[in-house]
């Protein structure tokens, strides 16, 4: 008889049924996905970014497909904190997976107000700090690329989040992502999620104009996966392992083997993003595939795999 494989994981002190999350901005506020997948089969769920006030977002065109990927420049369009609490939180409350709320802002106070307000909500396991959206101009400050700023915003967010877990989402559009990871950890991050999209551009050669109204957008999908795996491994080896800070790995995952690569690279959990658009049920398949891999490789606890690349 097959030995029971345990893919239950501990992530920043949370016990999760499995390591598979849905990534922010690719699964709405959960209700939109319910027609296509069993949300309770997930390990975790990360909401679309929430800002203090509603945001209209960028003009059309906001997306364009590329070879094995896509660019988006949505511009953090969202319903704002007030409507989120009224309309979406009641739905999230009924879900079994760990719920993380992705929080974005233009100044530090924007982050701390949203996080502070939600920090006592039982339904929420933690926050994902979005300091890495490539499509929004944040005045003169670029939160995600300056180590000192990353540390400051993380520390303020950590203070506001009370007992909730604070995960910081990193941008790959920096010279050395480990420096930024270290700054986030120094600021008090309980977990890191990497990687966000890569700033990129597509040009329509017929009109000689950028394909997106925002000129540039964030590249996601299978096209970025090997770079994302590399960056997860780099941050794991250089920073996260020593600091004992778990990584949520993401970037182009659409199969179980993609997810396992991230885990071998150093991710404790993984998130499915762009793949949700074409297969809103793919997280469930990925979870099944991870289990099968563990059986085949005689791995009794998924923890053994994390960062075990030779």
């Amino acid at each position, binding site marked *: 008889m097959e030995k029971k494989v345990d893919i239950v994981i501990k992530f920043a002190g949370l016990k999760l049924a499995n390591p598979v999350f849905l990534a922010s901005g690719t*699964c*709405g506020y959960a209700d939109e996905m319910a*027609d*296509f997948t069993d949300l309770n089969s997930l390990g975790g769920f990360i909401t679309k970014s929430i800002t203090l006030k509603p945001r*209209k977002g960028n003009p*059309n065109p906001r997306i364009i*497909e590329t070879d094995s990927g896509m660019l988006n420049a949505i511009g953090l369009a969202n319903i704002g904190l007030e409507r989120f609490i009224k309309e979406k939180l009641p739905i999230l409350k009924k879900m079994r997976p760990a719920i993380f709320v992705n929080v974005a802002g233009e100044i530090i106070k924007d982050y701390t107000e949203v996080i502070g307000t939600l920090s006592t909500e039982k339904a929420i396991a933690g926050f994902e700090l979005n300091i890495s959206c490539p499509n929004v101009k944040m005045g003169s400050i670029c939160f995600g690329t300056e180590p000192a700023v990353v540390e400051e915003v993380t520390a303020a967010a950590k203070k506001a989040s009370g007992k909730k877990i604070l995960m910081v989402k990193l941008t790959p559009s920096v010279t050395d992502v480990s420096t930024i990871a270290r700054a986030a950890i120094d600021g008090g991050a309980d977990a890191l999620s990497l990687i966000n999209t890569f700033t990129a551009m597509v040009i329509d050669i017929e009109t000689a104009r950028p394909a997106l109204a925002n000129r540039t957008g964030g590249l996601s999908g299978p096209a970025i996966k090997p770079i994302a795996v590399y960056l997860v491994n780099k941050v794991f080896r250089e920073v996260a392992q020593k600091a004992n800070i778990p990584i949520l790995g993401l970037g182009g995952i659409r199969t179980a083997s993609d997810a396992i690569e991230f885990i071998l690279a150093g991710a404790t959990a993984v998130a499915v993003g762009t793949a949700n*658009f*074409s297969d*809103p049920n793919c997280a469930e398949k990925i979870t099944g595939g991870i289990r099968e891999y563990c059986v085949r490789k005689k791995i009794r606890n998924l923890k053994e795999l994390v960062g075990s690349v030779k």
Partner: protein
Amino acid sequence: MKKKINKGLFSAKVRGNINTGRCFYRIEMELAGVPAKVFAQAQPGQFAQIDLSTTALPPQDSIAHKLRDSSGRNIILRRPFSFANVQSKGDKTIIQILYCTVGPASLRMTTLKTGDTVNLIGPLGNGFVIPEGKKIALLAAGGMGSPPVQFLANRLVKKNPEIKVVLFAGAKSKNEFPSEPEKFTSHKIETIITTNDGSFGLKGLVTEQLEKWIEANEPKEQQLIIYACGPEAMLARVAEIANSERIDCQISLERRMACGFSVCQGCAVECKVGSSEETIYKMCCADGPVFDSREIVF
């Protein structure tokens, strides 16, 4: 209480996929069981997201020259297609889609053969609705926008015989109609055809004929409704005519979509908020694709 399923991720079987002229094709797919029941409810204006990512490309030498260069691009997103018809036959539901080859995904679609399995998500979005008290429906179809209008024409003739239907169908030229406008329905309806170059029907634009018809017939605006789908410039003009004459008007829009079920937020449509100067972005996939002409900012 069990939630009623009104959309889902399903498989369909191809019943036929034929070239109807130039770059135009007609594909029919059949659904059985629960998916058939769900799709039987599909309304004109709704659409399905079809996965063509693993469908084979046609041989290189059969690909139109202008599409050949980028034909090999890997595709990862589904493509949205509105329905040209949906019919229930026993416990099966048959959906018909008209499409033209414009890029690597629609090129792949041409190689689907009878018996092949296709993965689709749908029915998605909100279709055209028929408000109470309407006596005349003017249907405006431009080029590749005609399939949902064709579906609507059929439905109106079958289910709302009290409504007089007049169809305005236009294209750039004779060869640019995805299906023959005279055959939009099996029933006879008044049809006015236009082409930009005059190679078929009247020379000029659909919108010119629409305006002329309204001027000549002077219908009571409360009893009149306009439905339209086609190129954005045509739709903007239709909206202008309808709004200035205070005629109810529903317009089906097209946008690039990644998901089709409002999680990607990619298919933004700028809409007015009441009579204020303020605008918001609605989602073409979930708030539309059919919008009230008065709310769209063209």
